[in-house]
């Protein structure tokens, strides 16, 4: 069957009333939680992960697709209406978006963000449909050494590219890898690093780590240095835009999509670099009114980066679904969601579970359309969500974090583990360690170990087996290059080019 037919089957599965309802719940919850200040897409997905355990896998992933895209939409609303720096992937949107809002053009800024996200999300999801089968047919021949090399590349890329200091990125990665080691070794049944605590034999659940590092860590960090001034939310009515705004937005949307999708698909690419590049490109291309307005609230500076942001979210799904390789913290948590159902993304998933994969991809299209309808008229409601008094907001976040973690196994031991991880999350924020490498290390580490042991077993202990395949050799060479990024960055800085922005999600 061609992928187009499979996609049609996916639509048939996703368009049942029950699954449409799950998609609607997903996008609504995703947007609602994504709008909340201090909560980025990764934390949105982590907090809502436990809810999906109560529904069957196909519906759960449809809901999850909605949460994923909804979280991205919600984040842009926050950055446009709230006059404070937010999570890094939507920080660029805030540069022009918030200035537009303060000049009385909040409705137009929200509209170009929402419509741009829809356009970019739809095009990028279509690109995913085309790219995924191609990558699958290429990856079907991958051996364990190739998968190990891919994991190493993901580790080094996310630690070095997304963080200003490589040693801090690597420290975060190491913390994640160590957490991933805890528990019984899958192949020999030996207990490792459990400190003799029986509850640790099964390892620490991904949900606890993600919720601890993101939700509780953020709550503790906010508690330690809460901004006491009340939040300044720009008032807004229904989001709409006029003809001249459309004329100025459509090209930036397309350019943003073209930048966002490939970067999202690359290890360590994430959303930060393409949004920044799109911002810079639109600035350079600005003519006439746009040129005068840039820096004071130009619509191009919202349209481009927002499109890049959403296109990269779809791009991230290419390596995730076809190779099982997460390239961002959000993708790592999505991978964990698959694992909770005993599913391993990769070429085999497309073979064994086509209904589930294509149903999820189809629901990305559906969720995207729902989000557009949901976001344009509901902007005033989201603006009100932003005014939630902070004490209640963070008390609520901790309450739901505790609920999700307790519900996993019904034991309070998990709550104490959650607290320890929350403290770690606090310390990482306080000292500027990026959280994404830790999450990726924790989730991808055990898989990297399995592939490494398989490869070495095939090679009968000969380490050179790791570079025998040309693909693996190239990937490992790229990983080494990734660790040298600070050198390149220094060279670029000397030439007067701005360094890439720092990232988190």
């Amino acid at each position, binding site marked *: 069957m061609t992928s187009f037919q499979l996609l049609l089957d996916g639509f048939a599965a996703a368009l049942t009333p029950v699954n449409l309802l799950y998609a609607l719940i997903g996008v609504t919850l995703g947007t609602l939680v994504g709008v909340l200040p201090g909560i980025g897409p990764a934390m949105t997905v982590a907090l809502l992960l436990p809810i999906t355990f109560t529904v069957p896998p196909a519906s759960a992933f449809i809901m999850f697709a909605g949460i994923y895209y909804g979280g991205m939409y919600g984040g842009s609303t926050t950055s446009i209406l709230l006059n404070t720096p937010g999570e890094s992937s939507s920080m660029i949107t805030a540069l022009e978006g918030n200035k537009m809002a303060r000049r009385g053009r909040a409705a137009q800024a929200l509209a170009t963000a929402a419509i741009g996200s829809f356009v970019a999300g739809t095009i990028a999801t279509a690109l995913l449909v085309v790219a995924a089968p191609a990558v699958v047919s290429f990856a079907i021949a991958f051996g364990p050494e190739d998968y190990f090399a891919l994991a190493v590349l993901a580790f080094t890329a996310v630690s070095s590219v997304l963080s200003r200091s490589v040693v801090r990125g690597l420290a975060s990665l*190491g913390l994640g890898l*160590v957490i991933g080691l805890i528990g019984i070794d899958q192949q020999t049944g030996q207990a*490792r690093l459990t400190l003799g605590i029986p509850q640790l034999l099964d390892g620490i659940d991904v949900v606890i780590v993600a919720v601890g590092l993101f939700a509780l860590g953020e709550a503790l960090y906010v508690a330690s*240095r809460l901004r006491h001034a009340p939040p300044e939310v720009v008032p807004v009515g229904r989001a709409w835009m006029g003809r001249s705004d459309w004329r100025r937005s459509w090209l930036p949307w397309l350019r943003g999509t073209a930048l966002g999708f490939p970067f999202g698909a690359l290890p360590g690419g994430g959303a930060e670099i393409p949004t920044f590049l799109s911002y810079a490109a639109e600035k350079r291309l600005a003519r006439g009114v746009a040129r005068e307005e840039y820096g004071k609230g130009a619509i191009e500076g919202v349209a481009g980066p927002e499109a890049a942001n959403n296109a990269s979210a779809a791009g991230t799904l290419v390596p995730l679904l076809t190779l099982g390789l997460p390239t961002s913290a959000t993708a790592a948590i999505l991978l964990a969601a698959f694992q909770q159902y005993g599913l391993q993304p990769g070429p085999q998933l497309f073979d064994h579970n086509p209904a589930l994969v294509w149903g999820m991809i189809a629901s990305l299209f559906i969720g995207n359309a729902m989000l557009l309808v949901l976001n344009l008229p509901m902007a005033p409601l989201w603006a009100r969500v932003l005014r939630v008094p902070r004490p209640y907001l963070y*008390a609520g976040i901790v309450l739901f974090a505790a609920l999700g973690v*307790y519900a996993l196994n019904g034991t309070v031991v998990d709550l104490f583990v959650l607290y320890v991880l929350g403290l770690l999350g606090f310390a990482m924020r306080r000292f500027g360690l990026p959280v994404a490498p830790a999450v990726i290390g924790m989730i991808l580490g055990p898989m990297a170990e399995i592939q490494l042991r398989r490869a070495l077993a095939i090679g009968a202990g000969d380490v050179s087996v790791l570079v025998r395949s040309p693909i693996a050799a190239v990937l490992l060479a790229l990983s080494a290059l990734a660790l040298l990024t600070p050198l390149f960055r220094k060279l670029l800085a000397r030439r007067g080019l701005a360094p890439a922005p720092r990232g988190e999600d």
Partner: protein
Amino acid sequence: MIGRRWRPELGLAVVVLVLGVLVVVGTLEVSAAASQLGIGPRFFPMLVGGAMVLIGLFYVADVLRGGHGDPEESEDVDAAAPTDWRSLALVSGIFLAFAALLDLLGWIVGASLLFFGLSVALGAEHRLRAAVIAVVMGVATYLLFVNGLGVNLPNGVFAL
């Protein structure tokens, strides 16, 4: 000398270093029946532990040489403010007390107290309003998750 060089970030760097050592030591305790070719249960943890020691050394050196990470920026955070240890301790204490007493109190009472305590600790001005919201949150989450989604939450001594 040490006093002048001490900076809080050094603590985190040392934690990374010590954790690396602990991973190596902890892995030595794992019996290695299947490790004739060096690919038993000890190989990968040794690799990770060794790397952590190395990263930890670099991290400590970086902090000693004056390197520092920038505190993360977030919507509700005043990155320039000094750390408010009192709030941090209060929030920690409330959460740990909640975890310790949850099975005894049950979800509704425990969660209501958690929400009330945290919102007051974080600066909610109307105590009464906070208390009402807290009880609504405790009851609503219980009804939604236990009756609606079939999740198991503790009843405690005040079982419904």
